[in-house]
């Protein structure tokens, strides 16, 4: 039991508890804030696994950008789910079936997989090395992903624009 394994188990418990709190909250703002804690835990886990650049990106993108976007939408729409029954009765069956099948398959995989008994060794991918690796081997994927982000930006802009009132020529016929 080294200091690294103690840190791992602490972070794992933190992540699991905050995520469980997040998915059971009725108040959406509380759910989003619990999830921010969960993503901070994941970022520290990435750092422990030797990916400092990804840890920073997790904080910036997930805990920063995405969760703030969620907070904006929740507050802007005054989304209120206080009358929501958390687990509707007709949804219990798929939840139970999928959960049990998933747990059975997962236990099977983990017990039979020989790699799962190998103990991880600490290593660290310096951001410079990681960046050089990315741009040597995956430069085309980087370009495609940047194009995807541009398309997403344009799409969100078009979707978010307030729809115009139909013009007079269209409405005089009684139909739109």
């Amino acid at each position: 039991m080294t200091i690294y394994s103690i840190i791992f188990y602490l972070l794992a418990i933190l992540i699991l508890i905050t995520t469980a709190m997040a998915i059971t909250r009725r108040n959406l703002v509380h759910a989003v804030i619990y999830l921010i804690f969960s993503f901070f835990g994941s970022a520290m886990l990435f750092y422990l696994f030797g990916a400092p650049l990804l840890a920073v990106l997790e904080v910036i993108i997930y805990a920063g950008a995405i969760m703030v976007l969620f907070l904006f939408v929740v507050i802007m729409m005054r989304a209120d789910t206080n009358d929501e029954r958390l687990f509707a009765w007709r949804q219990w069956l798929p939840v139970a079936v999928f959960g049990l099948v998933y747990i059975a398959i997962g236990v099977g995989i983990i017990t039979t997989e020989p790699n799962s008994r190998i103990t991880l060794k600490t290593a660290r991918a310096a951001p410079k090395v990681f960046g050089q690796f990315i741009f040597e081997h995956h430069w085309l994927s980087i370009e495609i992903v940047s194009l995807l982000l541009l398309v997403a930006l344009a799409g969100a802009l078009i979707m978010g624009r307030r729809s115009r009132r139909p013009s007079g020529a269209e409405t005089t016929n009684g139909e739109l």
Partner: protein
Amino acid sequence: MIVPFGHVIILAGLLFLMGILCVVARRSLIMIVLGIEIMLNAVAILLVGSSLLWQHLEGQAIVLFVFAIAAAEVSIGLALIVWAYRRTGSMDPSDYNLLK
């Protein structure tokens, strides 16, 4: 020495299961998109762990693309939710019955 790789799989699997639970059982569209985010995060944890197991940077490279796709997905998804909320005044997917 950190932990056996199986424990990382268990952590990622439990997180993924929570994401599925959130998507299947919650009835607000915002919680459904949050569940997808939880699932993507679980996948990212497993990829970084396997990258450490094989001492290869490929897993971390895939996580970078997962981040970018999560950002694109959540911006489009939230824009769609806002659009649907303006049209119908509801965020429950079972209220969207325009085609019935």
